[in-house]
């Protein structure tokens, strides 16, 4: 009788030990992304990128001998579903860190639960509210509007422009850009000559441009996503305005050039290096990772890489780098080591996190490009 109990106990201990050792061999990373719904253009490439990396890394032996398991939930671009998914990742799946969400609103909605659960969150959304004020457990990977505006204003300084007109779209993207422009243009010693707005569905911006023309600025900055900026570009040519036109990184895609047609000629904008891999010099620290990402993605999905997928790539690589640096997959250690990240080359830029900076990028994540004969050209 006693003997049988002893054996049973020993067996139980064995099973538990086996369970434990198996647990420690797997590194569980969660992700909550907008794979479907209106924001699917963000979430889909992000999910594809994470799945691709999971297979690739496991095929090469995992992370420091641990098998990588990525659990992806789709929030359908819906904030309620995102909150539920985050809860599930934290309470049931017990992940070591989470990548995502894809959009700012969803990130803001779940941030608090991560600091409560003490699990690091690396968001793929760009709003400044995510990282300012700094929440010790929340990081993000995209470039901020501030970096794009600074890059544009540096270009203005170089060219001696001081009177700037802005034309922004009246949606979330445009209004966030407008606020930063309104703040930084005077701060950089320039004057805001005109501040015009257009609606996301507007099809004619000649009235705004005529008003801007009358103000006589040195340069015009338009802040929006397709198709508005293409209309602005066309209207500008139609009105015969030869003031230089700058765009935001929101239109750094071939689609914009297609829509604006000949009117795109000479437009200048800040773009991430992922949009112009071939023009990045070979000795640039990002070159290798950019080429690797593009080739891997093309091989697996037979599709071009997008900036958004890059945010997820960067988020995961930053977390894995923190795991390797600290030789620990405990959420707290991952957080501490994320904060020590220095000059980590990824697809969006070189990340340097610190306790005061959880975005990690600066304006050098952008390159100024000029559109010439239907293609991008680095404008240095």
């Amino acid at each position, binding site marked *: 009788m006693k003997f049988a109990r002893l054996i049973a106990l020993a067996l139980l201990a064995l099973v538990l030990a086996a369970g434990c050792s198996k647990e420690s061999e797997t590194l569980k990373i969660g992700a909550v992304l907008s794979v479907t719904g209106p924001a699917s253009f963000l979430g889909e490439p992000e999910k594809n990128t994470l799945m691709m990396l999971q297979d690739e890394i496991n095929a090469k032996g995992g992370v420091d001998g641990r098998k990588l398991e990525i659990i992806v939930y789709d929030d359908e671009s819906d904030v309620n579903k995102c909150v539920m998914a985050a809860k599930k990742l934290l309470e049931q799946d017990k992940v070591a860190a989470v990548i995502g969400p894809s959009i700012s609103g969803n990130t803001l909605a779940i941030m608090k639960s991560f600091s409560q659960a003490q699990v690091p969150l690396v968001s793929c959304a760009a709003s400044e509210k995510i990282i300012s004020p700094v929440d010790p457990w929340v990081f993000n990977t995209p470039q901020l509007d501030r970096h794009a505006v600074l890059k544009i204003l540096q270009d203005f300084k170089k060219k001696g422009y001081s009177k700037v007109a802005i034309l922004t779209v009246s949606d979330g993207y445009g209004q966030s850009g407008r606020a930063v422009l309104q703040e930084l243009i005077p701060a950089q010693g320039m004057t805001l000559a005109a501040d015009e707005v*257009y609606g996301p*569905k507007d*099809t*004619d911006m*000649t*009235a705004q441009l005529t008003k801007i023309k009358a103000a006589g600025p040195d340069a015009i900055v338009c802040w929006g996503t397709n*198709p508005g900026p*293409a209309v602005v570009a066309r209207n500008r040519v*139609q009105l015969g305005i030869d003031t230089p036109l700058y765009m935001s990184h929101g239109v750094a895609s071939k689609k914009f050039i297609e829509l604006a047609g000949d009117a795109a000629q000479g437009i200048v904008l800040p773009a991430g290096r992922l949009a112009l891999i071939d023009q990045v010099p070979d000795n640039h620290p990002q070159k290798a990772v950019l080429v690797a990402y593009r080739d891997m993605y093309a091989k697996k999905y037979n599709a071009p890489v997008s900036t958004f997928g890059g945010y997820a790539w960067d988020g995961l690589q930053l977390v894995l780098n923190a795991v390797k640096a600290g030789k620990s997959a405990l959420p707290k250690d991952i957080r501490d080591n994320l904060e020590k990240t220095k000059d980590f080359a990824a697809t969006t830029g070189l990340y340097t996190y610190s306790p005061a900076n959880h975005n990690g990028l600066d304006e050098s994540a952008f390159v100024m490009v000029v559109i010439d004969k239907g293609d991008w050209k680095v404008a240095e």
Partner: protein
Amino acid sequence: MDLASLLQFAISGLTVGATYGLTALGFTIIFNTTGVINFAQGEFVMLGGMMSVFAMRALGLPEPAAVALAVTATVIVGALVERLAIRPVSGRPAMDLVIITIGVSILARGLAMLVWGKDTFALPPFSGDTPLPFLGAALMPQSLWVLAISLGLLAGLKYFFSATLTGKAMLACSFDAKAASLVGIGVRRMVLLSFMISAFVGAVGGAILAPLTMTSYDVGVLLGLKGFAACILGGLGNPFGAAVGGLILGVLESLGAGLVSSAYKDALAFVILLALLFVRPQGLFGKPESKRV
């Protein structure tokens, strides 16, 4: 504000206004025959533009042929809408039919999104895109096309409704369908015809606008709304009023953006519309409603 700028606001206002006016015309034609507001009118405009783009891209047709094909196809869609969605429930109150047209518009938009995706597309301008200087303002050749074709359509419709037997028969149907059928008018045929004509007007509008404003699966929503507002402004049921209502709305928006604030241009135009309706509920060119007791 100098004269050239004012002229520029007027020109862009008239061009945008012509787009509202064309949509408003489509509303008027169906309303005149059936007493129904067809909220799928904006979708006809969208189909005209999107099908032109895809006839050019996918079939490689030259632009005039692509536009002709798109317009024909949209007219067929208009006929199908009447046969499949409106006729089976004919005799129901007008409000029911209005709700059905809203359903049709959602369906058409959804299908367009599935087939052509969510992207925006541009059509090349009919005759180049070198702006013509006009008293210091810039005038696009395409704007002239839009204004000329809109005026042509308006004149044609005016003639059709007031001088042809078929046109008069269609008007008769809207006054009293039963009486019209008693005097030997094929009411069903007239309703079918009205859907085809308004699909034609919408599709032509969509095709001539696409080079200026670009097109996507969801352009119909806003155009439908603005076109409807133009109809009300001009007086519901009056083709001339619809066209002029559209032009006025366009110019108001453009002047609002140029002279007051571009952030409030839509609000401004609609505030003026509301104010006008308080004073003249029948619209600018509508006849006051009177009931005989």
